[in-house]
C-alpha cells in the first residue's frame, strides 16, 4: 500500500516536479522519526530494562538511513521518563544487544529475522511493512491515505517483556491482544 502511495506520490511529483517529490519523502521520514520518539514515551519502561537508572534509552535503526538521521536530530537533548535518548544506526547483521527499542526499516534485508531476533533479546521492535506485527513487531507503521497510522501487537510487546500505555492504544488502527486474552 505504501508502495502504491509512493507511486502515486511519484506520479504527482512527476507533474509537480522532482524537487517537490523529494520534500514529501523527507516529510514522511521525519514524521516517522517523530512517531518513533513519541512511541518511546508511551512504553512503560521498568528498571529491569536498564543497566543503571541514568542509562539512556537506546533506539536502534536498521534499513532507514533518512529516518535515523531525523531521529538523531529529534532526540538531541531530550529525555523520556528521566532517561536520555540515543540513536544507533545498525546493519541487519548487528546484534540487538544493548538496545531498548529497534526500528526495522522498509529497506532491511531479512527484516522478519532481524525483528524476531531482537524481540527474543527483550528489545521492543517497531516495523514498517506489511504483516509487520506477525513478524515480531510490537508496533507497525501503516499508511492511511494522507495520514500516517500505526498498529500495535500487545502479544509481541509482551514477548519482548514490555507494556504499552493504553492511552496509545486509543489511536492505534489495530490492536492485537495478548496471547492469553
Amino acid at each position, binding site marked *: 500500500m505504501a508502495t502504491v502511495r509512493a507511486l502515486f506520490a511519484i506520479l504527482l511529483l512527476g507533474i509537480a516536479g522532482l524537487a517537490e517529490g523529494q520534500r514529501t519523502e523527507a516529510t514522511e521520514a521525519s514524521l516517522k522519526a517523530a*512517531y518513533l520518539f*513519541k512511541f518511546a*514515551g*508511551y512504553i512503560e519502561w521498568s528498571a529491569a530494562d536498564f543497566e543503571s537508572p541514568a542509562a539512556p534509552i537506546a533506539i536502534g535503526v536498521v534499513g532507514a538511513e533518512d529516518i535515523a538521521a531525523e531521529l538523531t536530530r529529534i532526540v538531541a537533548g*531530550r*529525555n*523520556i*521518563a528521566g532517561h536520555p535518548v540515543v540513536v544507533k544506526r545498525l546493519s541487519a547483521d548487528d546484534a540487538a544487544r544493548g538496545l531498548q527499542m529497534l526500528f526495522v526499516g522498509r529497506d532491511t534485508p531479512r527484516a522478519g529475522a532481524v525483528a524476531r531476533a531482537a524481540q527474543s533479546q527483550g528489545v521492543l521492535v517497531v516495523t514498517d511493512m506489511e504483516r509487520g506485527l506477525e513478524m515480531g513487531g510490537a508496533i507497525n507503521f501503516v499508511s492511511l491515505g494522507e*495520514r*500516517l*497510522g*500505526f498498529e500495535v501487537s500487545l502479544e509481541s510487546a509482551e514477548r519482548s517483556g514490555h507494556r504499552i500505555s493504553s*492511552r*496509545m492504544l*486509543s*489511536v492505534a488502527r489495530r490492536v492485537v491482544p495478548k496471547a492469553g486474552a
Partner: protein
Amino acid sequence: MFEAIRHSVRGKAILLVLASTVSALALSALGLVLYDLRAYERQWTTDLTTQAEILARASAPALSFDDRATAAKDLALLKVRPFMLAGALYTRSGDLFATYAKPGFEPSFPPRPGPEGYAIQGDQLSVFHRVAEEGETIGTVYLVAYYRPWSRLLDYLTIIGLVMIASLAVTALFSGWLQSAITMPILEVARVAREVMSQRDYSLRARKTTDDEIGELVDSFNAMLAESGRRAQELRDADQRKDEFLATLAHELRNPLAPLRNALEILRMKNVDPASGEKARQMMQRQLAQMVRLVDDLLDVSRITTGKLAVRREPLALQAAVQDAIETVRPLMESRRHELDVSLPAEPLMVLGDRTRLAQVFSNLLNNAAKYTESGGRVWLSLEAQGGEAVLRVRDSGIGLDPHALSTIFDMFVQVDRSLERTQAGLGVGLTLAKRLVTLHGGTIAGRSDGGGLGSEFEVRLPLATAAVAGEGAQAPEAAAAVAARRLRILVADDNVDAATSFAALLAARGHEVRVAHDGAQALAIARSFEPDVAFLDIGMPRVQGYEVARRMREEEATRRTLLVALTGWGRDDDRQRASEAGFDRHLVKPPDPEEIDRILEGAAARTAPA
C-alpha cells in the same frame, strides 16, 4: 394588626420572636449566599479545569499521532455532562484540531487558543488548558460550560422562603406556649385589676400559676390588693364613725335645749315660788355646763384632727388637777349613787403640765367609770409615786371591756356601748383626747379589764418634775390665795350688748368696778380715763377691732400694764397666736368658764398688788 401589637404584651412578644427569627434567617442566608456564590465560582472553574486536564490527558495521544477522529470521539464524551456547551482541541501550532458542541448550541470557537486560564462571559464559563506530554506542550484544550449563579441564587431564595415559612410556623407554636407561660399570668393580673376597678371588690385575687418572677408579680399584686382593701375598709370605717359622730353631736347639742327652754318658761312666770325658781336655775346651769362641755370637746376634736392640740408646761401639784376632776364629776357620781374611793398621797406630786388639761384627762376617766358602771357601783381613784413617775389609777366595778374593745377604745369616735342612754354617751372622743393629752405631757395611758362585767381599770403614768421646779411651783397657790379678794377696775368691750352687760353684771357681783363699751373706739376712750386693771375685749367689734384696741392700749402709758384678755368664738391656735402678737395676755373662748375668769382675776390682783 399593628394596633394590636402596640397595645398588647402578647403582640410585642410575638413581634420580638418574629423579628429575631426573620433577621437571624436573613443574615445567615445572606452569609450563606455570598459564601456559596464564591464557592460556586471556584467549584465551577476548578471543575472545568479538571475536566480540561482529563481531556488533555486523554487526547494527548490523538494530538501526538494526529488522530482527529479519536480526538473528536474524546471530545464527544463531554455530552454526558449537560452543563458542557462546547469543547475544542488546538494543535501545538494553534490550529483548530477537533471540536464538539452540545446539540442546539451554536458555538463560536476562537480561531487561535487564548492564554491558559478561565473567563466568565455572560452565562458562560470558558477555559483554555495546555496539553502536555513529557513536559512539552503539544496542544490546547478549550471548554465552554453553562455558568448560572442566578438560577442557583433563585434556588437559594426558594429554600430560604420555605425555611422562613417553616420558622414562622414554629414561631406561632412557640408564641402559643409563650402566651400560656408568660403573657397569660400578666393578662390575668390585668383582668383582675380591671375587675377590681369596676366592681370595687378588693377581695378578688389573681391566680398564681408560676413560681418565677411573674409569680412574684402576682403575689405582690395580690398583697397590694389586700393592702388597698384594708385601707378602703379603714376609710369606710372612719367615715362611718364620723357620720355617727355627727349624728351623736346633733343629738347631744339638741338634748339640753328642751330643759333650758322649760326652765326659762318657769322663770318667766310672775308668781313662781322661790324653790321652783332655784330648781329651774340649777337645771339651766347643769344643762348649760353640759353644752359647754360638748362644744369644748368639739373644739378639742378639731385640734386633734388638725394636730394643733397643745398644753402648757407649768409646775403643778397633781393633787390639784385630781381635785378639779373630782369636783367636775361629783354631780354625775351623786346622781348615779356611786361610791367614790379616793386615795391621794400626803406629799404633793409635782409634774410639769397643764392643770386644766390634766383635770380634763382625769375627769374623762372618772366620767367613763361613772357612765359604764351600774347605778350604786364603786369607783376607785388612786395616785402614787413609782420611781420617777406619778401613777394614777381609776378602777370601777362596771361592765368592763372585752379584749377586742381594748385595742380600739383610744380611737376617735369609738364608743364601747352604744346602747347607753344618750345623755350619758358624750361624743366618743374622751379617751382619744385623754391619750393625746397624756402623750403631750410625756406620759402613757393604758386600759385593762378582766372581761365583760368584771370592771375596768385605766392607768395614767406621768413623769415627775425635778425637786427644784417642784419647790417653786408649790409656793404659787399660796401667794395667789392671799390677794384673792382685791377689788379690780375691769373694762368689758363687746358689740353683743347682752353678752357684755350680763358679763359685766357677773363681775360687778363679785365686787369689782366694771365699765362697758360696745365698740373698739368707745373701749379705747373709756380705757384712757378709767385705766383698768383688766380688760376683756371682744375681737370682732365694729369701728376698731379687738386686736387694734389691744395694740393701742399697749402703746399708751395709762393702759400699758393692763391685763388684756381676748374673747373670741374661736379657740384655734393661730387665733391664740394672733392675739398674743397683738398684745393680749390671755385668750378665752366664748362662753368663758367662770372658774377660768376667777383664776385670771386672781392673777391680775396678785400682779397689781402693792409690793
